[in-house]
């Protein structure tokens, strides 16, 4: 096969840059990495054919500099730019700048990104396509001055409590507030608008009814440039904390074939309405009464795309590149779409981040002194690092993704548990303990997922305390082993036998 492009630049870092380079290499596409000073020695840089420095470590001076990235692409002779996820991936101005430089942007058309990036516009689009949305507003709230408070309270009363304040430009839970009591409304609106202004440069917020106890289910979409759009199955992303996904799986446990067909159909309707080209994901809320409400479209490759790949057998990055090169949806994609409501495999993804799950998932950057990944049957690792890597504090703390696949959910959970157990890390705390706990949580293992489960049930202290006892035992056992080593034997380590210690022990009876 002729490669769709001769050379491609990935405007991203970490595991997703590595992931995209892998497909490029399989397709015979030369690869160009970009990097900040913090990433000069990063895995994604070393796996690329060439690498271009963007600037200092802060993202605003490196990975968010559209001008520098387009210049790097032009200078390196790249024909196409893949944005990955996050950073500039959904900024229509970046896609437009790439196209203006005569290069191919691997993603939806800039005008599609612009219309989907605004959640209010996306709500209007879904409604126009006949897709249900969570009851709420279509326009931003008036600015929160005294004269508008009465109007905001009136709008809120019309929607009903509890409700959510959301940022029109939002994502990742920023600019989002839950309000249970009308008395808290005005202050929450002000806070959400301020947070949204800081995060997105746009303080527009709106109100939506809070659907409690629901699940977050999303649909993978692919579209080509002649208007074909298909759904490639759904992913359940309900295991979250503060609206940040921790675990995703496909298919969503417990849905019937009819429900899957309904959900996939809704997603395709929204995608057709915006003329989707390339890859995107439509997110839905699955309420306890069985109804689906459209939330938003993420017009990019998702972090969790791998679970869909494992279930469908597709390489979504490959399909993205072929579509970007002007090809129609491949027979493999059309075949996978036909089987999307009757999946015969199950897959799960665990996000491994440099965060301390005992301290409210606080970022824990630092030197990775030990890193041995799991492998073996049904396990896939997507990682952006190796042992000895200094995790920078400048970016998202996600390091790696553990994916497991198998014929059914039970097999997959066993594989995931085995993979977590096999994973050996040191130097930085990761979210592995959370996953070890989740994979034995009764509700989770029974497939009863809820977006509020982690907030309700995650109680790290007893788990950590028990593990600390076992750690002390392990060290004591290690010392006993060293003490039992005959004089002149191997490895003189341990506090009693280490020559560096500078003191000599008596022979202890």
């Amino acid at each position: 096969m002729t490669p769709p492009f001769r050379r491609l630049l990935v405007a991203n870092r970490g595991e997703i840059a590595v992931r995209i380079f892998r497909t490029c290499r399989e397709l015979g596409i030369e690869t160009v990495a970009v990097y900040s000073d913090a990433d000069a020695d990063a895995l994604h840089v070393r796996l690329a054919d060439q690498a271009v420095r963007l600037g200092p470590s802060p993202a605003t001076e490196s990975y968010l500099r559209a001008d520098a990235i387009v210049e790097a692409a032009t200078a390196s002779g790249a024909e196409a730019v893949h944005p990955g996820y996050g950073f500039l991936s959904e900024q229509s101005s970046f896609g437009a700048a790439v196209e203006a430089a005569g290069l191919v942007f691997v993603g939806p058309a800039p005008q599609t990104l612009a219309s989907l990036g605004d959640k209010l516009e996306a709500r209007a689009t879904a409604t126009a396509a006949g897709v249900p949305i969570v009851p709420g507003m279509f326009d931003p709230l008036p600015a929160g001055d005294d004269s508008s408070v009465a109007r905001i309270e009136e709008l809120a009363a019309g929607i009903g409590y509890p409700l959510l304040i959301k940022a029109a430009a939002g994502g990742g839970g920023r600019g989002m507030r839950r309000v249970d009591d009308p008395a808290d409304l005005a202050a929450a609106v002000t806070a959400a608008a301020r947070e949204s202004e800081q995060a997105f440069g746009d303080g527009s917020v709106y109100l939506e009814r809070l659907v409690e106890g629901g699940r977050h289910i999303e649909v993978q979409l692919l579209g080509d440039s002649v208007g074909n759009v298909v759904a490639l199955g759904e992913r359940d992303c309900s295991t979250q904390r503060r609206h940040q996904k921790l675990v995703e799986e496909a298919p969503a446990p417990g849905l019937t074939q009819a429900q899957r067909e309904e959900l996939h159909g809704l997603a395709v309707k929204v995608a057709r309405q915006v003329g989707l080209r390339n890859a995107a994901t439509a997110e839905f809320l699955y309420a306890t009464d069985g109804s689906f409400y459209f939330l938003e479209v993420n017009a990019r490759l998702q972090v969790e795309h791998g679970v869909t790949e494992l279930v469908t057998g597709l390489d979504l990055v490959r399909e993205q590149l072929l579509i970007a090169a002007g090809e129609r949806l491949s027979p493999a994609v059309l075949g996978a779409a036909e089987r999307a409501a009757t999946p015969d495999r199950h897959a799960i993804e665990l996000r491994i981040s440099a965060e301390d799950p005992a301290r409210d998932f606080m970022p824990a950057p630092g030197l990775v002194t030990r890193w041995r990944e799991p492998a073996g049957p049904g396990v896939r690792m997507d990682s952006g690092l190796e042992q000895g890597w200094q995790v920078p504090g400048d970016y998202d703390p996600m390091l790696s993704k553990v994916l497991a696949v198998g014929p059914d959910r039970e097999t997959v959970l066993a594989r995931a548990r085995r993979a977590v157990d096999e994973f050996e890390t040191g130097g930085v705390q990761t979210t592995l303990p959370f996953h070890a706990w989740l994979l034995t949580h009764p509700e989770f293992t029974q497939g009863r997922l809820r977006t509020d489960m982690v907030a309700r049930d995650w109680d790290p202290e007893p788990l950590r305390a028990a593990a600390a006892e076992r750690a002390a035992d392990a060290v004591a056992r290690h010392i006993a082993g060293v003490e039992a080593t005959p004089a002149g034997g191997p490895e003189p380590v341990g506090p009693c036998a280490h020559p560096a210690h500078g003191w000599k022990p008596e022979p202890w009876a």
Partner: protein
Amino acid sequence: MGMSDHRGHYRMRVAGAGDEAFHRDPAEVGPPQGRPPEVRVLAQTADDRAAGIQRYETSVEGWVFEVAVEDEPRALLREKAGQGAERGGPKGSDVIKAQIPGRVVRLWVEEGDTVEAGQRLLAIEAMKMENEVRAPHAGTVESIAVEPGSSVELRDELLRLA
């Protein structure tokens, strides 16, 4: 309670697990539940070496722990000697002070000797263990305040390095 009762016992502090110390007798720790966790010996800092502390790293169920270990007699001795004895060697200082109370059992240098950094100066015996005091930097032994057999208390002056 005699200190000799603690022979072979270790006191461990597990980073982040609060102030509580874990006490372990390696001879009495049973077999692990399942696969034994990997234990890595961490490089010793000068302060830890002076304080007789060795650190290890291990992970259990994904929790990453740094475990600081000292033997129980020494820990008790340190406690007896008061707070603050654990850290802060004499590095950079010209007055070399006792980091542990005990009895001077050896003296390897004389006044006027030139010494290199890390060279052995003297040894203090405490709890029947010899604690070697080494030169924190190169220099000349200006004066010696002790002789073999001298009893020293924590932070007593041992010698001066010029």
